[in-house]
């Protein structure tokens, strides 16, 4: 049960039940769709970028608790950040959930996103945790095609 609690932390469950910024963003000038064909998870990420900073960000779609909470917390932590900072955080987040963060170094700069460290013990769920981030990346790159985790 302790293992499961590492994955399903209260913050994650809470975000999955009441996701933040869960809406379409009318003012969005960047937008992308992301799929996980293995489980059918499907999200759209909307970003309003002004200059090089993220003025607003939101998402819509459906997926498991991990993918939804990850999307929700991603939008929270990226509001006001520059696009370069966002890409950097994606890199750190990816390292965190794949267990590649240096040992004993609390990824302080990831803030609340550190609750996803438990995902690294569940390799099949890494794609769930990173789906929204891959979609964000595609949106920032202005890719027209939907991204897929496969």
């Amino acid at each position, binding site marked *: *049960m302790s*293992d*499961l609690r590492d*994955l*399903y932390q209260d913050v994650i*469950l809470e975000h999955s*039940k009441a996701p933040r910024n869960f809406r379409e963003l009318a003012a969005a000038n960047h937008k992308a769709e992301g799929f996980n064909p*293995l*489980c*059918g*998870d*499907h999200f759209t990420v909307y970003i309003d970028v002004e200059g090089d900073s993220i003025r607003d960000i939101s998402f819509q779609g*459906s*997926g*498991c*608790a*991990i993918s*939804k909470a990850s999307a929700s917390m991603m939008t929270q932590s990226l509001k006001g950040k520059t696009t370069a900072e966002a890409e950097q955080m994606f890199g750190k987040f990816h390292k965190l959930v794949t267990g590649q963060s240096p040992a004993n170094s609390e990824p302080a700069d990831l803030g609340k996103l550190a609750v996803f460290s438990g995902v690294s013990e*569940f390799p*099949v*769920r890494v794609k*769930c945790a990173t789906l929204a981030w891959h979609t964000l990346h595609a949106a920032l790159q202005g890719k027209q095609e939907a991204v897929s985790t496969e």
Partner: protein
Amino acid sequence: MSTAAEKLTTTSQGSTTTGAARGFDVEKLRRDFPILEQRVHGKPLVYLDNAATSQKPQAVIDAISRYYEQENSNIHRGVHFLSERATEEYEAARSSAQEFIHALKPHEVIFVRGTTEAINLVAQTYGRAHVSAGDEVLITAMEHHSNIVPWQMLCDEKHAKLRVAPISDSGELLLDEFVNLLGSRTKLVAAAHVSNALGTVNPVRQMIEMAHSRNIPVLIDGAQAVPHCAVDVQELDCDFYAFSGHKMYGPTGIGILYGKSALLEEMPPYQGGGDMIASVSFEKTVYNRLPYKFEAGTPHISGGIGLGAAIEYLKSIGMNAIAAHEHDLLSYATDAVSEVPGVRLVGTAKEKAAVLSFVMEGIHPHDIGTILDQEGIAIRTGHHCAQPIMTRFGIEATARASFALYNTREEVDALVRGIHKVREVFA
């Protein structure tokens, strides 16, 4: 074998299996499957993903090892001792399969890689020869992607139309709609015997009769039926019947396409190569006789032999005994799982086999799967390669427990405890 003798065999089998079902010793049978002894995350393995693939009994594992240790050689071409023995074993497996599905002739049994290849073979040979612009292929709304996509590809190529017979909210085929869709342009019907995502058993006998009364041939996807019930292709009168070895306790990479002789004879070959020819010159190739016309190249010899061993294993238990045991498990599980608050079953047809698909309010199937896995319970979550069914039910995925001959009521109890745990985590 005469029809009368066949009937007699069926009857006597039927009466013995009633006794066998009563004396069905599941604990003894479990010992035939070495993989079931292991623990997963510290808990005894509860394997309920049998519709994806079943586990293999020692008899199958031994048959494959024995082939590689003692008989390995190429078949149908060697004059030497080993080749003769391997050929004999491989062909014996074909005869076992023939008897198992009650095909009239051994050459009506074609070895393929699995159900998917069997369906593609028919689409690419029979389909391409008979389907033209404006024609129709009829499938049902509960097909696996492997019985949708090959027909879509064929219809795209030929500018033909894929028609889909709808299903009810409980997951039953709407027979009236099905029969209405059988038209003068319908060139083939392709339907699942048992739905992999819902467990629905289709009234295939009736469907075949309806199609035949309009001279339309029928392919049955039997991947989810053959492991669970006795199949008699002559009694069904189907034109093609496709199934996989690995879902019926045999190895992966081997399966069978049954086809009626007359149809197979007139069909063009599928792949070209060795073994499928009688003679080759640069001017003209004469194709081999059945079944070899459809078996180009060195086949999956150990797979065929392994499948033969799986069939002999199933015969030794009796399909009616297995069906009775699994029916008991399914109804026990249906009652127990549907009693859990917040759980809804997907697929509640009157006739079902071995599959329990469900969703939980506010909890994604993927999360159910992870939490059950921590309890040592293996189920499948997702769209089960049947996305149109998910769309039909307005969902994206389900959690699916599927049963085999070695599953027990205690394992169903473990599943129910696991589902309660899922509720706790998400409470």
